[in-house]
């Protein structure tokens, strides 16, 4: 199934974006997010970017105050996911220009639109930044 969820969480542990590709109840989400955020935030720069948690493997990357956490199956290619996170960040960067936590917070819908173009059903659909951003640009033009 590949990617199970994508989370963006800040240093204080506040969720800035959550997208799940499998159904979890609200309670399960809360518990899961709490556990993995605690685990990942406690790690330092010298440690690797992968954390095993229950049946998931969490691949995470930190950009300034924001953590990107991607939950995948146990046999997903970890480095490919790690760079996929970076692709996501670069894509947001291209759109917002020097993207920061506030951009994602106040433009949650745009972050969702981008993700929607990049991942579907837990699989990667598109990796070309131009293609990912073209629907958003069209919409911005139209309005």
């Amino acid at each position, binding site marked *: *199934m*590949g990617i199970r969820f994508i989370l963006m969480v800040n240093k204080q542990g*506040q*969720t800035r*974006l*959550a*997208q*799940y*590709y499998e*159904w979890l109840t*609200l309670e399960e*989400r*809360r518990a899961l*997010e709490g556990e993995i955020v605690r685990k990942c935030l406690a*790690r330092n720069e*010298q*440690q*690797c*970017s*992968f*954390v*095993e948690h229950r*049946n998931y493997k969490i691949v995470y990357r930190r950009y300034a105050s924001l953590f990107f956490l991607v939950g995948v*199956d*146990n*046999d997903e*290619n*970890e*480095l*490919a996911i*790690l*760079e*996929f996170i*970076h*692709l996501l960040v670069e894509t947001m960067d291209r759109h917002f220009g020097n993207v920061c936590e506030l951009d994602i*917070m*106040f433009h*949650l*819908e*745009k972050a*969702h*639109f981008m993700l*929607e173009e990049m991942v*579907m*059903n837990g*699989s*990667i*659909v*598109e*990796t*070309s*930044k*131009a*293609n990912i951003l073209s*629907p958003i640009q*069209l*919409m*911005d033009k*139209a*309005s």
Partner: protein
Amino acid sequence: MAMHGMRGLSVFISDIRNCQNKEQERQRIDKELGNVRNRFKNEKGLSPYEKKKYVWKMLYIYMLGYDVDFGHMEAVSLISAPKYPEKQVGYIVTSCLLNENHDFLRLAINTVRNDIIGRNETFQCLALTMVGNIGGREFAESLAPDVQKLLLSSSCRPLVRKKAALCLLRLYRKNPDVVNVDGWADRMAQLLDERDLGVLTSSMSLLVALVSNNHEAYWSCLPKCVKTLERLARNQDIPQEYTYYGIPSPWLQVKTMRALQYFPTIEDPYTRRTLFEVLQRILMGTDVVKNVNKNNASHAVLFEALALVMHLDAEKEMMSQCVALLGKFIAVREPNIRYLGLENMTRMLMVTDAQEIIKRHQAQIITSLKDPDISIRRRALDLLYGMCDVTNAKDIVEELLQYLSSADFTMREELSLKAAILAEKFAPDLSWYVDVILQLIDKAGDFISDDIWFRVVQFVTNNDDLQPYAAAKVKEYLEKPAVHETMVKVSAYILGEYSHLLARRPGCSPKEIFGILHEKLPTVSTTTIPILLSAYAKILMHTQPPDQELQSQIWAIFNKYESCIDAEIQQRAVEYFALCQKGAALMDILAEMPKFPERKSSLIKRAEYSEADTAEQSAIKLRAQQQPSNALVVTDQPPANGATSPVPVGQLSLAMVPSMITTEDHTSTDPASSQQNGSLTKVDPQHPSADLLGDLLGPLAIEGPPGATVQSEHNAVSRLEGGPDAVDGSAIVPVEEQRNTVQPIGNIAERFHALCLKDSGVLYEDPYIQIGIKAEWRAHHGRLVLFLGNKNTAPLVSVQALMLPPAHLKMELSLVPDTIPPRAQVQCPLEVVNLRPSRDVAVLDFSYKFGTNMVNVKLRLPAVLNKFLQPIPVPAEEFFPQWRSLSGPPLKLQEVVRGVRPMPLPEMANLLNSFRLMICPGLDPNPNNLVASTTFYSESTHAMLCLIRIETDPADRTQLRMTLASGDPTLTFELKEFIKEQLISIPTAPPQSPAPAPAPAPPPAAQATPQIPPNDPAALLAGLLS
């Protein structure tokens, strides 16, 4: 600006951001929820813009972890909005908030379908994405054809088609039948010719899901994957937008290599060579560069290439290249690479011969066990666990023990379980095993589950030499100042049973032993006291000559606990006290525990269980399942299970505890007294103590197959009572002498039949040995590997394996060692060459000795006719000329078969398919007929096409007419008889299974071919066809 207008949303978000604490946040959110709820109530006044705004607020609140139990209808209703911005929000929020079983989704199916089949491609994308994310079975049923059409359409733009591919993947997971469409595999192969990388990326994900379930159907995609990979690796025709730091889409490269890992092998030499060239370039050409992202991306590709090389069992040279790379990786500074190096090295353990090279890195791996990063430590632990064998067990286990004292809490349980399992599996000698477990209990008592100490007790009980050693050892531990309660339990048990063996040593008199034990009593919990009481009773019994002082001391203790509030303790105290008064009778009842039957370790079972909890199928796991090399521990059925054990319960318990009969004789009391005996000797599973000791003592002593010591007694009983014969006669060549006293586990005939259809599994199993088999067939050659696994803690000796091949098979069995060491597994390759067509079956005459038992079985080997078949589809334009050119006997034979096992036609088609006869649908206009084709390989016939036609009678499923044609008369005859056997016999019922070698075809099939009545329409058709 579509979203900039949503000021209300921005205000709300900054309010939330400004909240000082969780409480304030909750208040603000409750306020907003109330507001939104109110606005939705008088929905009429809401503009689409407002609706959109409120729905986003809902999503925001939901994301923060608050329940939003209203407004779902409003979100769903936005889907049918005419304008894109509203529609988009509707789709996205719906797929975030609702799950596939939500009722509201059903309401939207029609709108969704209209969007999918409509002309507006942006709407199509939205709808496909939502269905792809949360579509359920109903969506699969109503939308699959439309989605397929979009995916394959040449007029659709890539942006729609890439979404259609992943949408179809979702629908396929919900209902696999959506792609069970004729020719889907071909269309899938065409899709892989796609130039657009977006569509190709999604299609590759779809392919991975399809091949992981059924690679056979998608062979034609294999060369396409290799071509794609080549295109990417050589950077041919890759748009700039799809290269990532100079690397052509690393994600697509990874996906493609993942797809290739689901095909078992690559037959075509050209494709294989091309792929290996590409892989070689990746292995050699990946350098470490400064840029982190580029480095990661290229190593993502490299690690996937490593996995693929391992999967393909490449040439030795390439393999050692891989191990060398991994060896380098586990020592680098970059933690990600170190982690992945360890992870992939663990996977590499499954590759034959790799283990030895990996062992060279043992020191480095042990260093990683002390890495500051827990993720890396876990990988190192897994790898050490996997690479452990008899040669390095001592080193590895000792490292684990050492690490245990400093390991973090979260890892201790796993660590101690793994150390215990390794110690048990690979102990060079049993005293070492006892040492390890006692150290484990000493260092990490809290994490030592009961099964671990139960298992020690079992080993000690079964090995006389070990008893004094273990007793002395536990005494040492007990003398330490702080002792874990588990240590008290195991010590009490062992000292109770065996401390009398030490009686002559200084400090080991019964009185002293009692003193050491009794000192602990005030510190232990109520679960341990009963064990101490039993130990006291036993010590007292062993005190020769009787020691009055000790006796009164112990009696006083029993007396004291007679009024204990804990029922278990009370009962024991009362019983032991009463028994002590009986003098000689005590001796019988408190006699040493009998030996335990050999059985699978519950630890190992537990380890398997915990490994089996991730359900997702993966290439690696599939591979692991196909590898019977760990068949010793991975048995597919519990060997000591009462249900499968042919030993009736009553007989065994009688044989095991003769003392019970004696006590009943002279105590002449009511049944309650034998109940007491039960609790004393602890074989009564109903007794409360069974909860504590159950795994060790209760059910085991009753259910398990008999231990070696009671073998003869048990056998006498089963003969007397006319119990089932020890060996499944039908599974064995008629000359079999029925002298085996060892019962096989499972049905030998069933195992054989199962292996006729698959290529790996268990051929034979009994309490001492398991014989697994793994086979590979290529044309007329076969390579089988027999895995002989000793399940015991004692060696199997005089092992002999003799092949009795039929005349048509040339078989060479490599040398089988005379002795199989305890808990070891030996692999014996067996080469098979098929000389000519025949249904005769090869037999393996196998014997070994365990203790005094000589076991001899004759096992049929699944080197049967159908293994030399290769299914081949034959198109109509080739079939009919062939069919006509083979005109009549002896090349074409026809027979009416009666007594056929009635089955529906699809089932018959499946049966034929499973024997590698490929059903060619559509060739025969009559729906009641089956036409199949296959190629047979032997040295005399080479590859020879066989055509089969089966005409069934819908009114009478027990008869059919079969016509067979091939270019070789013997082949035609043999194949006809073979198929007939499959159709009339019930393969799993032993009495009907065809007897091998000497016996000719089974009787019901041997009827003469009667004439076909002329009014039979099928016959008329046959005339036309021939």
